[in-house]
């Protein structure tokens, strides 16, 4: 996707913040992304993306495949460095942090990778325990209890001793979820947490997202193509399209929007890219 020549403004993107703020009390701004731009070679993947999220909010990030959702999340976690733009997360300016501060920040942020990224040289139990063990603040008994709890939450109480390559795709996904959750992060990015899962498990995972949010008041950004199942979980949606934010708002806002692309997304789920 080449950078768009015309800088036409998109009239569909206004956020109706009052509607969101009315629905439930939200805390401080915890993620503020401004003018985020990223190129791979001469391809512009993100072109001036803005996003603001408040504490306790669950936002669904949707968009066609290959639009740059995963890249967006990696930028927000500091795994990639943007070509332009600002990222403030949990009150820190991500791009201005030194190594130590970034490390510190990352213990407060969780990320579920789209393609699992489990450590294939350790067992599932060690994978989930790893972030906690590395922090060195808990005893082995505490760690074991927490690992068991997190794995039970994702319906995998009996796989601790297996190696990641002995699991199915959907099981790996859920282990990744348990691992990202183990340190009780304040902010969690879920990159397609239900890809490759059966409908029942998908619903369970989305319930887990909701429950995590409710119990710990953590803030969640959920990428998914499964708008039907996101509905009970997400407070609001952001539609990335053609390297930009095409729409932000609730489902009602989407239905009221006059943008055919927004309609298409919310009515029929996914559309392929033209």
């Amino acid at each position, binding site marked *: 996707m080449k950078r768009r020549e015309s800088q036409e403004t998109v009239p569909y993107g206004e956020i109706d913040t009052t509607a969101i703020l009315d629905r439930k009390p939200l805390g401080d701004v915890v993620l503020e992304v401004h003018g985020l731009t990223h190129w791979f070679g001469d391809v512009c993947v993100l072109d001036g993306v803005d996003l603001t999220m408040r504490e306790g909010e669950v936002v669904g990030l949707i968009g066609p495949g290959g639009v740059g959702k995963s890249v967006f999340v990696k930028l927000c976690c500091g*795994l990639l460095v943007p070509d332009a733009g600002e990222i403030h997360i949990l009150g820190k300016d991500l791009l201005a942090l030194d190594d130590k501060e970034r490390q510190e920040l990352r213990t407060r942020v969780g990320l579920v990778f789209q393609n699992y*990224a489990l450590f294939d040289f350790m067992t599932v139990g060690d994978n989930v325990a790893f972030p906690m063990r590395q922090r060195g603040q808990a005893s082995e008994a505490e760690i074991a209890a927490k690992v068991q709890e997190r794995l039970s939450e994702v319906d995998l109480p009996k796989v601790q001793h297996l190696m990641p390559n002995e699991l199915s795709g959907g099981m790996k996904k859920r282990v990744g979820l348990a691992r990202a959750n183990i340190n009780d992060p304040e902010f969690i990015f879920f990159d397609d947490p239900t890809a490759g899962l059966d409908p029942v498990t998908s619903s369970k995972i989305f319930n887990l997202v909701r429950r995590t949010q409710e119990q710990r008041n953590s803030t969640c950004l959920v990428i998914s193509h499964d708008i039907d199942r996101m509905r009970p979980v997400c407070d609001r949606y952001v539609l990335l399209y053609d390297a930009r934010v095409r729409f932000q708002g609730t489902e009602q806002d989407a239905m009221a929007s006059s943008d055919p692309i927004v309609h298409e997304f919310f009515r029929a789920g996914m559309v392929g890219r033209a």
Partner: protein
Amino acid sequence: MKLLAMIGRTCLGAAETVGGITIVFARILRAMFPPRFDRDETWLNLYKVGVKSYPIVIMTAMFTGAIMVIQSGQYVKQTGATGLLGWGAGYAVLAEIGPVLIGLMFSGRVGANNTAELGTMKVTEQLDALRALAIDPINHLVVPRFLSMMVMLLLLTALGDLFALIGGALTSELILEVDYRVFFHGVFEGHLLDEYFTGLCKAASFGASISVISCFYGLNVSGGATGVGRAVNQCVVTSAIGIFVWDYLITYLAN
């Protein structure tokens, strides 16, 4: 014109590689002072690198010692200067052939393995996952590998030296019918301590360069399985070049 462009590209590529390797090395040093690396991982790697490599090192060394003796055997037999046998073999093996051959074996065995491992972790996003979990891959993966490869190549070369001499002694006894005591007498009377330490010095620097080079290629893999294959290939070639450059420098300085 085409030739010029090709030379230019090659030089640029080489400069980029050397620059990248230097950066990895600098980051390793920074993680070691003050020490911030993972101790458990270091022990694990010392074990993995050392225990898995010693059979092949012993075999390489014994053959090397034996070949040195056979090479000089003809001359020694003609002149009857059997005392030279141990000195000649010891000199060549301790200072030069031993460290270089063991280093080359080590780069093919451990260095390539290391690049493949790190490269696979890179393409399957495991390195990103480490970083996302607030763990620096340099502290957790690279420094332990650096330390264990340096220490283990040093120890393996010391071990290899011993077995090279044993191989030489056996060969002189069995094939040249020169008593093994005569052989060892030649070694010890030859005042080869300097050569021995030069050899160990070489081994340590080979270990360091193999580990930095293999980590550099592993961390910079792009593009899936073919990318990993290419990186392993480049790692082995560059490690060999590194070994010869260090060998040249240290030999020059030691003489």
